[in-house]
């Protein structure tokens, strides 16, 4: 089995390795301390060469295989969840931790719900999740959680 995603990954890590390798040269110019053994660029060079070599090995092994290229199935659920998480992160600092968590959990339940209807159990559990996390982390453990217009 050979997948398009694997080939893309191979090229991605290859590119990452090359960028890291090229950037490492400017690091040694910062080696202002003098007399400090190997410079700051040595180890990044070593590691990025390793990444480049392994990427090439992976790509060669992929292209050598005489199999049909297949695309993986990606569903929209994961995509939605990622977007929701990003919204959760951004809004946390605006609205406040506890309120955002409640909204987030409820929305997430709705997305995962088979019937796409919300019942009382879901609302109560969303409330319990946000209330327990807030009490444990903020009240009991004194973590300064982000606060905005609400708590």
């Amino acid at each position, binding site marked *: 089995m050979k997948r398009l995603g694997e080939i893309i990954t191979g090229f991605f890590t290859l590119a990452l390795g090359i960028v890291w390798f090229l950037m490492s040269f400017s690091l040694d110019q910062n080696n*202002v*301390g*003098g*007399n*400090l053994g190997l410079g700051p660029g040595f180890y990044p060079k070593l590691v990025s060469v390793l990444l480049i070599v392994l990427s090439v090995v992976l790509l060669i092994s992929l292209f050598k295989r005489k199999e049909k290229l297949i695309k993986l199935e990606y569903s929209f659920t994961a995509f939605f969840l990622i977007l929701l998480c990003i919204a959760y992160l951004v809004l946390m600092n605006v609205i406040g931790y506890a309120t955002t968590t409640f909204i987030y959990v409820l929305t997430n339940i709705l997305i995962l719900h088979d019937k796409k209807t919300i019942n009382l*159990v879901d609302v*109560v559990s969303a409330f*319990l999740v946000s*209330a*327990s996390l807030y*009490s*444990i982390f903020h*009240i*009991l453990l*004194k973590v*300064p959680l982000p606060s905005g217009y609400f708590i």
Partner: protein
Amino acid sequence: MNKLKIFRLCLITVLVLCVITFAASCGSQKAESPKQEQQQQKINFPEKPISLVVWGSPGGGSDVFGRTLAKAAEPILGKPIVVENKPGGGGATAMAYLASQKPDGYTLLAVTTNYVLTPLTKNTPNTYKDFDPIIMIGRDATMTAVRAGGEIKSIEDLVTIGKNKNLKWGTFGVGTTDHVAAALFQKATGIKVDFVPFEGGGEAMAALLGGHVDVLNGNPSEISSQLEAGQLKGIGVFSAERLQDYSDVPTYKEKGYDIIVETWRGIVAPKGVPEEIKGVLFEGFKKALDDPVMKDYYKKNNIIEEIKNGNEFYDFIEQQNEFYKKTLTEMGLIK
């Protein structure tokens, strides 16, 4: 899961939450016991809890110091002082956070020498010019330590041995106070030194005890237990006068090297805090230093009490900034 079970689960969770909230409120009630009669200022400050940001992780040296100080100052200022950890970037994260806060005196930062060192060595966005100092509260000496019973027994030995072979000098980082002190000494004497930087004190200390490095500089609090046990020996102090608890250890100044490098501690606020509020905070923290727990902490950790008000502290910081800028440039650590 049937409905009854869900109901039971909800009930249990609510009960647990009640207990937690109750326990927490009990805890904070104790802390809030107001002694406002001590406060004679006309303005109403503080009216709500103050947060004291520390840039160490929970449980580290600067965290324990911040928490002890907060506890001592709480009854004097009359409101709870909440310690917030913002570790990272040698203090840069905490400084950026403080710069983003309102200058109302309710957000403070406990600083050490890194306050000038981090912006200098790491080019971070915020410098001492972005903040208002409130109070300087003390300083820690820098002491040179070697293995007891080893070849090196004094500052003179460092020089004679350092002329013949490269000394391996362990440091707690690059451009740190202990490193700066050692580099100034190296420059003054022309000895040969290989600086071996470690991450954190524990690893450097283990390397000294294990003989992987020959010598290191540390605050007395960091090396006191090994000194007392006779595993390490203090051979010199980078201070103007000898330390009370280690009066047998000479200063570098006595030996003709005028090098004074100390770690200082203080409290700063975002720029633009009203003078009256600065005054309340200054008096509050100054009084907190007389608390017996605080006195005990200073004595145990060999911290020298030195109080400067906001303006004096600012001048001192400016002068320290110049000193480190010059020294670090000479050391080749900044351009």
